């Protein structure tokens, strides 16, 4: 499947899946179980709304989601309390798989969700979405239910605006367009077809997730795409247009940290795959600047992208899932 065919066949709009009754019936027919995971860190302002909307619409009204879990990195606000009050299963990431130790990062929560949750499909939704709607979940889960060959579905957000000639440029955010798409275009041209490769919302089959190593920081989304592509091919990946996502905007300096973390992950992947030559030992310090009076000061951030092994390699997980017979 080339990128053009892929774009045509594996790009969806959530409205294609409006018939939730049919979707739920198909899910039941295929004997699938769906878990929804919301990773959190200090999200008390938005988490209540996400939980109430998903529970009411996708568990009570249409039983598409079988399990709704909040996996928290140790919020100091009322995130866990609010989420539990509205009916989510709430876990502290450090309490899950304690023998693996504790690392800080969103990827850590996503990785531990594989251990804790029970679904055949796990859908990850960020907690900071202001305009949360049920289609954020069903738009990602539906391709996995209807198309067995699809294993990994990524969200993108494209709200059509008026365009004079009917053609308009679309794409991702600043990091995507300045860093990821050029990198993909150079090394993995097929993956450049993903409109927003860094979006934090995606749905994945467990039998894929458990085989993926997990960078726990900024590189998790990039590494997933590369790993799924290498192992299962482009046809295993799909993307769904969810229209519009309203969320906090990040300052450029924070995006710099994000780009640094992603580059670390990307280059270590490229080295492991033998697609780049001899790279020197990569640094872990990002330098940014600030000025005080007439004096320019360097700010140094030690950003080391740690990586968790594929969950299937964890003995506790194998025991829990009965994988060793």
């Amino acid at each position, binding site marked *: 499947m080339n990128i053009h065919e892929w774009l045509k066949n594996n790009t969806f709009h959530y409205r294609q899946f409006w018939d939730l009754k049919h979707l739920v019936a198909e899910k039941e027919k295929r004997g699938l179980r769906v878990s929804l995971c919301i990773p959190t860190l200090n999200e008390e302002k938005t988490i*209540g709304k996400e939980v*109430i909307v998903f*529970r*009411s619409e996708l568990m009570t009204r249409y039983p598409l989601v079988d399990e709704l879990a909040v996996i928290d990195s140790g919020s100091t606000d009322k995130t866990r*309390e*609010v989420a539990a*009050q*509205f009916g989510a299963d709430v876990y502290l990431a450090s309490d899950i798989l304690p023998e693996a130790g504790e690392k800080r990062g969103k990827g850590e929560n996503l990785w531990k969700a594989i251990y804790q949750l029970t679904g055949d499909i796990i859908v990850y939704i960020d907690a900071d979405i*202001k305009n949360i709607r049920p289609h954020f979940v069903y738009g990602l889960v539906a391709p996995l239910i209807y198309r067995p060959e699809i294993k990994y579905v990524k969200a993108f957000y494209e709200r059509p605006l008026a365009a004079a000639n009917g053609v308009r440029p679309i794409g991702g955010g600043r990091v995507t367009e300045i860093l990821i798409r050029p990198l993909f275009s150079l090394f993995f041209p097929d993956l450049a077809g993903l409109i927003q490769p860094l979006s934090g919302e995606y749905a994945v089959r467990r039998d894929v997730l458990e085989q993926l190593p997990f960078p726990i920081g900024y590189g998790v989304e990039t590494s997933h795409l590369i790993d799924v592509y290498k192992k299962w091919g482009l046809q295993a990946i799909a993307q769904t247009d969810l229209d519009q996502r309203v969320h906090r905007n990040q300052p450029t300096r924070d995006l710099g940290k994000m780009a640094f973390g992603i580059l670390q992950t990307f280059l270590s992947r490229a080295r492991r795959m033998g697609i780049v030559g001899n790279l020197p030992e990569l640094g872990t310090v990002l330098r940014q600047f600030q000025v005080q009076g007439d004096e320019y000061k360097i700010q140094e951030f030690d950003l080391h992208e740690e990586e968790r092994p594929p969950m299937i390699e964890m003995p506790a997980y194998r025991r829990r899932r009965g994988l060793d017979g």
Partner: protein
Amino acid sequence: MQASLAGRGLLLKQLDVKNMAKKKFQEILDRLPALLSQAGSCVPALLSNLVLIGEIPSPTFGEERRVRFISDRFAENGLVSGSVDEKGNAVAVLPGGRGDRSILLVAHADTGAPANVDHTIMIEPGQVTGPGVANNSLGVAVLAALPHFLEKMDVALDANLIFLAASRNLARGNLEGLRFFLQNNSQPVDAGICIQGTQLGHLSIQSLAMMRGEITCTVPEEYNWTRFQATGAIRTINEVINRINEIPLPNKPRSNIAFGSINGGSGFHRVARHAVLRFEVRSEDDAMIRKIVRQIRDICEDVSSQKESRIDLDVFAERKAGGIPFAHPLSRRARKILEILEVPPRVSPSTSEIFAFIERGIPALSLGISTGESLAFPDERVDVPPMAAGMAQLAALLLAIDGGFCDEHP
């Protein structure tokens, strides 16, 4: 003697019927604790509806997207004969067991929040905040979710329930959607309930007489600003306000003039060429309203002639006083239901949608679902805990109307 006995027999029979009605209404009151508990389990679904509906901007004359969503919800909930009519109302029917009577449930779909305001709703334990959540996103959310709630609360009615999310209700809308429906609906309506987001306990059974309008002051382009006493539109409007404030308002019939908003000018130092004052006159008496508005018109003309600026008075909404009496069974039953729910009832007249029912002689009342604050501000808020009582109240009142306990001669 025989005639007298027959008279006594008739009297006893009437008493018997009354006692039977009382007894059966008591059965509804006895059901209230169960209804309250069942309504409590429906609150999460109500909140979800409130978010999904309330985050769709719906200014008056711009309700299409919200109405489309509600119409879809009606269909998903199994209502029949669903449509969006030419005035932009979403309407659908839950057929009753017998279907020989019809109760119209209405909630206005428009809010006072402009479309360009951030409509994000925030849910915290105990409260929901966002533009228009109280007036009237919560009311519409109840309407959209009610068929599902009634099913969960095991409330089945003999009467048809007509669900109407009414467009063009507020401000210049002047109840246009509801009036259009009542004028053109082929199915007779026996009673009406207007669902408001807030305030729980408030019942409105009577409409105040009201006139709503705008006073616009425009200074002509060729105005000579070097003239002594040259003023701008804001000062002129200010003079109009001062003069209106001098209008004597009687205590009986109770009457008042509310200045709702004032807009004018374009900066700090430029003298304003344009200013608009929005006002509403309310009274218990139609004649008093007409008298006050006549005085306002005279003031406008007088100030205009002195200031050489143009002052236009546009009265675009009007209500006449009326409604059902305090002792009407619909009012009595509604108050009793609130008392059993331990919510103090407060009956007061309003200028809400009930006027559209009153002008057609249909008994109706307006009720609130929860408590709330900061109405008409971006941080408009409704409280979550009272919502269960608000919905139980609505279910019990529907049962009472359906059982004929709210008819004038049960």
